[in-house]
Structure formats: C-alpha cells, structure tokens
C-alpha cells in the first residue's frame, strides 16, 4: 500500500493527468482530495449517476440539484467507503439512489408536486412519463423494457422507487419470501439482457 502510494504520487508528478485509473487508485486520489480525482470520477460516473437520479425523480431540474449533493457526499464520505462491504461503483450508485429516493419522499417535494398537479406520482410512473416530463425521456435508454412486465415492475419498485420488500409484498400481494426470490430471478434475467449492451 505504502509503495503504491508513492508510485502513484511519482506517477502523477511525471504525468499530471493520467487517462485511466484503477478503482483503488481513484479512491486514493479522492481521499487526497485531488482535483484530477474529481474529474476522473465525473468523466466516468456522472452519466450513470445522472441517469439513475433522473429515472427516480423524473425531472431534469431536480436531478441537477440532487446530483450535486451526490457528488459532494461521495467526495466528503470517501473515507467511509468500506471495500469489504461492496464495490465502489455500487457504493456510489446507492448514494445516488438513496439521495434521490429521500428527496422524492421528502414532504417539500411532495407538496411541490401537488402544486404541479401530477397525480399519484410515486405509484404511477408510466402515466408520468407520458405527461409533463416526457421531454426528459428523449434518448432515454430503457434496458428494462426487454424484461417481462412483472420483472420490470419489481425492479422499478425496489430499485427506482425505494419500496421496501415488505411494501412490495403488500402492493403486489405476494409473500415476502417470494418477493426476494423473484427479485433475484429478475436480476438474473437482467444480467443476460445486459450482455447485449456491453
């Protein structure tokens, strides 16, 4: 670790902007609060994180606000990232999801939505996407459409709408254990589907 650190340091001295960093190198840069680290992070992950937030809050305006918070959170809590509990990219995805879902659930946001008279926002994304914000969806790459409807719904509820498994079990009227195994099957299907995208 110590040697890597010095090498990395030397490397940066020689060649200030490196084009590829490994995840570990990136984490070291971020911990050092290095500006190149930020740019690398932004170049490689902003699109994915932006896409996730947009899918959750369904408004470009809010997404732009939330993604700023997400980057600040990643920047400030990089020391809390624990590689033994998961991958770095997944960690960032979860920060983005949680921040966006919290935002969605916050009262202020709900009230504002009422003012915009969007009906039952949380429950009805299909309706939403055809109404007010449809312009947001131009060029929106929806991989999930390749899945069967029930699997799409499950991933949408759990991943993009922040439903707990208990809530999903109640909403879809299926036992909790089934929710869990169905979720796994849905992700297995998704994995196959995503092979074509790589």
């Amino acid at each position, binding site marked *: 670790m110590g040697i890597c650190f010095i090498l990395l340091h030397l490397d940066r001295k020689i060649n200030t902007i490196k084009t590829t960093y490994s995840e570990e190198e990136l984490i070291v840069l971020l911990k050092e609060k290095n500006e190149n680290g930020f740019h690398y992070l*932004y170049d490689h992950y*902003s699109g994915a994180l*932006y896409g996730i937030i947009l899918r959750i809050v369904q408004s470009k305006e809010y997404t*732009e606000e939330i*993604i700023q918070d997400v980057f600040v959170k990643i*920047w400030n809590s990089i020391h809390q990232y624990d590689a033994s509990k998961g991958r770095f*990219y997944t960690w960032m*995805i*979860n920060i983005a999801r949680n921040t966006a879902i919290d935002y969605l659930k916050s009262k202020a946001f709900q009230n504002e939505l009422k003012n915009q008279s969007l009906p039952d926002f949380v429950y009805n994304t299909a309706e939403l996407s055809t109404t007010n914000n449809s312009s947001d969806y131009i060029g929106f790459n929806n991989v999930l459409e390749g899945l069967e409807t029930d699997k799409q719904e499950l991933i949408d509820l759990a991943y993009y709408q922040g439903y707990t498994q208990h809530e999903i079990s109640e909403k879809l009227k299926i036992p909790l*254990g089934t929710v869990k195994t169905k979720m796994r099957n849905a992700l297995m299907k998704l994995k196959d589907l995503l092979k074509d995208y790589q």
Partner: protein
Amino acid sequence: MNTKEYISSGIIESYILGHASPEEAGILECVMKNNAEVKEAFEEAQKTLEHLATAQAVTPPSELRSKIWNKIQQEQNVEEVSPTLSTNIPEIKDHRETTERVNIQKNTNWKPYAIAASLLFLISVGGNVFMMNTQSSDKKEMALLAADKKAQAQAMERMNLKIDMFSNPDMQMVMLKGVEKHTEAKAMVFWDKKTKEVYLNAEKLPKAPEGMQYQLWAIEDGKPVNAGMYTEDKDSRIALASIPQAQAFAITLEKEGGSAIPTMENMFVMGEI
C-alpha cells in the same frame, strides 16, 4: 439451508438494494468472508446493477461539472471553518465572529451548534440535580455498600471461573456485539476447540422477561444451528452445546425452552469468529 439455497433466497439482492435487516446483513457479511461462492454471487449481483447503470446512463448538461466542483470547494471551506468553532465556544466574541463568517458563506449548518448548546445546558442542569441528590442519598449509600460487598464477593467467584476460561489455551473466545436495536448488549462465547463445547458469558444481556429465555445459535454457512439455551446458572460454567463448526454466533430471545429457528427480530448480539 446450503450455499445454493442461501444464494437463491435473494438475500444478496436484498442486501445490495439496502433492504436487508441489520441481522441479515451481519450474517451475509460474515458468510461472505468464509464462503467464496456466496462472495462471487455478491460480486455478480453488484456488477449486474452497475452494468444497468452504465447502460442507462444519461449525459448531464455540460455546465454541471463546474457547478459541482464549485460546490465541493465551497463545502470544503466551510468545513475548515467549523473546527475552530467548537474549540472557541467559551469565547463569546470569537464565537460570534465565526458564526458570521459561516453565515456569509451561506452555511445553514446551525444544527451542530444548537445541539452543542443544548447539551451544555443539559449537562449543567444534570450537574445541579446530581449535587442535590448526593446529599440526601448518603444514608441510602451506607446500606447499599453492605449489599455491594456481598455482591462483590460473588462477582469475584465468577471472575475466577472466567479467568480459568481465559487461561485455557484450547478456548477460543468470540465476542458478540449488540445489533442495531441493542447496541449496548454484548456477550462472549467460549468455544473449546478440543471438546467443541461452547460456554456463554451473557451477564451483560438484559434480564430475560418471564417465560422467555436466551438461545445461542451457531451460524454455519449462513444457516443458524441451535447452540443451546442460556440460564444464569450456566453462565461461563456449564457448556450449552457441542458445536463442531461455525463462522459466527448469535443470541436471540425465545420462548422458554427455545425455538427451532431463530426469531430474527429478537436478535440481541452477534459476532463472527
């Protein structure tokens, strides 16, 4: 439950989505360290959702990069100001100045200071109440001292038993820490590597309610195995069960006599080996 069943139960996906209970998460984290197959499935599931995120990426507006960088730098400046605040609380003048500086930087971060102020107030009130109480309670204390002495003698006896446990080189100690709902709780498992017998020190657990009893579980490949019922009488003295293999131990509160499967929401402590 074997490894395959454990993986297909969907627990890994629950964990990644942030839906697993602290108990389930604790078990999974422990199993992952010991089971390559589970670890591999965990990596795979994460990668799937990462690929989904990459495949569904949307390019943000170009001015966003500089907006975010500015915000990060702004927050960092505020952070550098904050520490001086906490050390300067007694100096009112200084304090006010710093607060103003923070305000200028549009920091709405007044909560820590409000909390700090409330805490100081509480400590001061608490101090007064404590002083008043100590005077009136001198007599009570005398009586308590006598009782204390007796308790100490008993504690000493238990301590000696524990020292025997500690000094046994075959004895593996496993510290069980309180789960989210019971962060204060803790217990210690003594596992005799020769005889495979497990002993439990659980004096630090709250007294079990009437009709209920603490049950020890050994976690073997993610599957909880009954490791015996705890009574105060057995504490650090009498083996609860013989456990050939385990990656972790956990304690749940169960109806008297125990249960066949642990009641997860009644888990108090858990610790991996």
